[in-house]
Every structure is written in structure tokens, then in C-alpha cells.
């Protein structure tokens, strides 16, 4: 599989839910500390290099990106200046971004599009809040402020249109219902900051959290006193965790130890794959919804790898 080189440091990569060969990559200059950002949309070709379809520049780093589930050309970017920007690939670059939503008072760290109702998305920020947005409104619908520290990630439940989970530096993960004034559940999931969370696609009560304590924990929200599984194997903080869209017990994760790991939390030897292809922190990983086993990762080595599970990401 070919490799795509980005000019800035990679932060996030996402497969399009519409086209199996299309990906979006969020990048930031100077490791996202200071400088500009760029959002790339790239296409894989059966044989040959990865082609860039579009690129959008921002005045600050781009930390995360999410594809719209309602329009195949719509993208949402979490920008480090606190804004959430909407881009439309069908419009010329001069018309983009089509919308810039500036309500977060600190860096926006993640965005996630609601895949069930397909009309809304959530953004999480270092200002400790999560905001709910709909694509037809210029302001947020509501703000969820309960976390006592930065909210690093928020993810919709893939089977329930009103429920999402959030992961925060206050060492808790919280489960929210957009109809409730406060959070439904508070999971004191790790001893250290929680950097990412994701839902099991085949069991709507199971979530995974990843933390600075190098571990991934799988929880059943119906009984969250003890984790269902604890996955150890990363050498440093686990930056992102993602459940497979195709198999209920499979998880993929990436870490500051520069590796991408695949796990099956149901089996005893849960680490079922390890890829050490990145030469800097691996901070973005995704699994294709449309092609089983197709993985993508990006990192601070400014490279985007796309490969089939079981093959060498660096193989040409």
C-alpha cells in the first residue's frame, strides 16, 4: 500500500463512510504547538500513488476531522483556535470553509458526527466542555460542562442517536444523553488522564477507554465497577482507541510509543497485531467501515499509511 506524505505533522485520519478509497487527514505544523494546519482529502488508487483531492489551510493546527454521515462531500474539522469548521468538497477552495463555528474558548480536540440521526455532531475541547451542533444552525444547540479538565475526545453511540461518551483529563469517562441536563454515568476509568474513548459497534453498552497509564480498558456501562478487560502492551500513553466496525471484540489503538496495535478483548492473548511502521508518535488511526480489515494511521512523522490488517504497512 502506498504512503502519503503530508507537509505538517499528522494528527488524525478518517475513512469516508461513503467511498471506500477516500480518507481525510488532519495535520498541524510544528507538532500542533504553534503554526498553521491543513486538512487533506486523499484518494487511494488500485495501483499507484495516493492522490490528493483537496487541501484546506487553517490559521491554526487541525487536531481532528470527521466525515459527515449525511453528505459525502462534507467534512468537519476541529481546529486548535477553538473553532469547528465545515468544509464542502463540492465547492471551490475559495468558498471554504462553508462555516466556522467559534464557541469553544480553548483548543477543540475532537469532533464526531452522529451516525444514527445524521444531522448533528459533537465537539470536545480543552475548555472542559462538549458542544452539540446541528448542521443547519450557526450556534451550538447545547453545551455539556461537567468535566473538570480538558475533554480529549467524545464519541456518539453507534446504535443510539441520543447517547455519547466523553473522555477527559479529569480521569473520568462520562456517558451522556442529550435530553438529560447532566451526565448519565461517571466512570472513574483510569488513574491517569483518559485520552480517548469509543463504543463497541455490536454492543451498545460497551465502551473502551485509553489513557496516559498506557492501558486500554473495556467497560460495560451497566456494571462499571470493574472493567471487562484491561489491555496492556503499549509502552507509552495510548492516544486513540477505536472499535472495529466489522467485529465486535476487535479494537485498534495507537500510542506515543509509535506503534499501532490491534486487540481482541475477548481472547486471552488479546494483542493480535502490532505495527511499528511510524518513526514518531502515532496519534491517528482508523478502520474502514466499507472494507473489512483496512487500516489507516498517521503520526508526527508526517506520513499516512493505509494497509490491510496482516500485511506490512511499509510494503510498496
Amino acid at each position, binding site marked *: 500500500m502506498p504512503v502519503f506524505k503530508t507537509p505538517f505533522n499528522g494528527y488524525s485520519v478518517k475513512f469516508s463512510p461513503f467511498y471506500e478509497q477516500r480518507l481525510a487527514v488532519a495535520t498541524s505544523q510544528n507538532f500542533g504547538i504553534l503554526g498553521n494546519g491543513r486538512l487533506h482529502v486523499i484518494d487511494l488508487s488500485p495501483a499507484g500513488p495516493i492522490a490528493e483531492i483537496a487541501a484546506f489551510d487553517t490559521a491554526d493546527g487541525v487536531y481532528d476531522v470527521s466525515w459527515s454521515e449525511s453528505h*459525502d462531500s462534507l467534512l468537519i474539522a476541529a481546529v486548535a483556535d477553538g473553532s469547528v469548521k465545515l468544509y464542502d468538497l463540492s465547492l471551490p477552495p475559495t468558498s471554504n470553509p462553508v462555516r466556522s463555528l467559534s464557541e469553544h474558548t480553548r*483548543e477543540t480536540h475532537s469532533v464526531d458526527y452522529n451516525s444514527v440521526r445524521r444531522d448533528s455532531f459533537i465537539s470536545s475541547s480543552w475548555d472542559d466542555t462538549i458542544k*452539540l451542533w446541528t448542521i443547519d444552525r450557526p450556534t451550538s444547540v447545547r453545551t455539556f460542562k461537567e468535566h*473538570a479538565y480538558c475533554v480529549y475526545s467524545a464519541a456518539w453511540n453507534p446504535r*443510539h442517536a441520543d447517547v455519547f461518551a466523553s473522555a477527559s483529563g479529569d480521569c*473520568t469517562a462520562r456517558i451522556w444523553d442529550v435530553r438529560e441536563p447532566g451526565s448519565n454515568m461517571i466512570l472513574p476509568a483510569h488513574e491517569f488522564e483518559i485520552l480517548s474513548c469509543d463504543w463497541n459497534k455490536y454492543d451498545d453498552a460497551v465502551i473502551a477507554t485509553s489513557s496516559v497509564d498506557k492501558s486500554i480498558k473495556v467497560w460495560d456501562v451497566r456494571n462499571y465497577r470493574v472493567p471487562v478487560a484491561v489491555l496492556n502492551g503499549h509502552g507509552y500513553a495510548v492516544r486513540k482507541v477505536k472499535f472495529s466496525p*466489522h467485529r465486535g471484540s476487535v479494537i485498534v489503538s495507537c500510542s*506515543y510509543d509509535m506503534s499501532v496495535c490491534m486487540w481482541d478483548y475477548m481472547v486471552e492473548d488479546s494483542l493480535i497485531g502490532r505495527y511499528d511502521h511510524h518513526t514518531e508518535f502515532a496519534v491517528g488511526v482508523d478502520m474502514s467501515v466499507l472494507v473489512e480489515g483496512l487500516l489507516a494511521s498517521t503520526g508526527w512523522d508526517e506520513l499516512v499509511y493505509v494497509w490491510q490488517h496482516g500485511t506490512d504497512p511499509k510494503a510498496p
Partner: protein
Amino acid sequence: MATNNSSQQSGAGPPPKPWERAGGTSSGPAPFKPPSAGSTSDVVEASGTARPGEIVPTNDTTSAINRSTLGRPVPSRPWEQQQTYGGAGYGSGLGYNSGLGAGGYGSYGGMGSYNSGLYGNNMYRGGYGGLGGVGGMYGGGMYGGGMYNSSYGMGGMGMGMGGMGMGMGMGGPYGDEDPNNPFGAPSQPPGFWISLMRVMQGFVTFFGRVAMLIDQNAQAFHMFMSALLQLFDRSGLLYGELARFVLRILGAKTKPKKLHPPGPSGPHGPQTQIEGPKGAPAGAWDGVWGNN
């Protein structure tokens, strides 16, 4: 890779997800209320929880509603004002990661306290001064004490990491400009104080993000600093040269170190004797082979 799925129309939604095709396989009753019908904004408004466009100030204390549920106190944000800046007051209360020296987590004060923690109190103080200086700069200078007092000066940033911070921080005045802004002519150049404030904002942002990265990856930062200190140590820079460098920055005159002191200087004699040929005394080779 397959080609575009041309049957997909904009607005029609993506292909069904694998888990939707699989049907409901939840391992039991989910603990959530059943989903409501209608659009998200309607659902939220019907629930009475909608608050359109709410902007939460960063110093909003009401956001700490459920602080009591936490197992331990939460460190202050890097951009927050540090009243009890420094090693002891701030860091030790947390016990967050003692290996890093009293909560180096997530604040300028924290960075300062890093200096007074593991590395600060032992022999590595000198080598680590650069980062400690940053802590001092923000904790004491900009916010804590006089707003623009002299501790903002570059001297506080010192060596090593300081150089990087200086160069990037100066980009600050332009950080707020949006290159995508399609409206109108460029505005008036900002006044001196405005641009100074923006420079400072740039510094705050820069070190805030550095601190957050350290926050997220504490172990790697520890390894990095250990490696850096080892490097300094090995090169012999740490104790002598570095101290001399600091003194020179501070304006003190230091005598250059003499590389080859004259005369024998140790029990093994002068090292210079090893180098270069040496004339043997006359007849010194006589009788080597026992010439009887």
C-alpha cells in the same frame, strides 16, 4: 481498491453500517432511555436542555459540578493563573507523578516546579534551568506580579528550549489573522501594546500546548529529559560549561579554561608527553639486548 460507489448520492446517507446489517446484538437491556424521534435540535429543545450558543468562560467555576466524584484533585490548566506558583505549593499537593517532580503536569507553574523537583534539587539544576525559567516567567512575571516586569525578558528563558520558544512565540501577533478571511482590506496595524499582548498570548498558547503535550505523554517526556541530561553529562557540558555559559549571560566575566596547563599536573605526569616524538638521550638504546 474499488472505484467510486456511484450509486451513492449526496444527502442519501452512506451505505448501511456493518453493525446495522447485523441487527441488534446487545448483550442485554441497554441502560439508556429509548431514542426519541425527530431531529436532534427538536429532541434537545423538547427536553428543555437546549442552550443555543452558550459560551463557557474558561474561569467558569460552575463547570466543576462533579469535582467531588474525582479520586484526586485536578491540576490547574496551563493557561490558568497560578497563585501558588512554584514547586512546593502547587506540585506537592497533587502527588500526581512524583517521578516527574511534583506535578510537572500542565501549568507554567508546573514547569517551574519541575525544576524544583526531581531534577531541580539535585545536581542537574543547571542543565534544566531553561525550562524552569519558563515557569518563573509566567508564574511570577506576567500574571503573578507586575504585568510587564523584567522577568518577562529572554534571560528567563535561558538556553536550550528557550530558543525555540522565543522564535515561535514571536509569530504570535499574526496568529489571529485568518488567511481565509475573504472580507475587505487589511486592518490597521495594531498598536504597540496590542501587539505586545498578542505576543504574550502567543507565549501562553505555545507553552500551554507544550504543557498539554507533556500532560498527555508524561513518560516520554521523562525519557526525553533523562536522555538530554545524560547527553549534557557525557559531553561534560553540564557542570562546567553550562554554568560558565549562564554566568556569561548574566554578565559575569569568566576566565577561559586553559587547555594545556604547563608542567606536570598529576601523579601520572603531563599528558602532553604522549603526543609527539621525543628525543631519546644519547646512548639510551645501548645495551637493550644485553650486549655483553
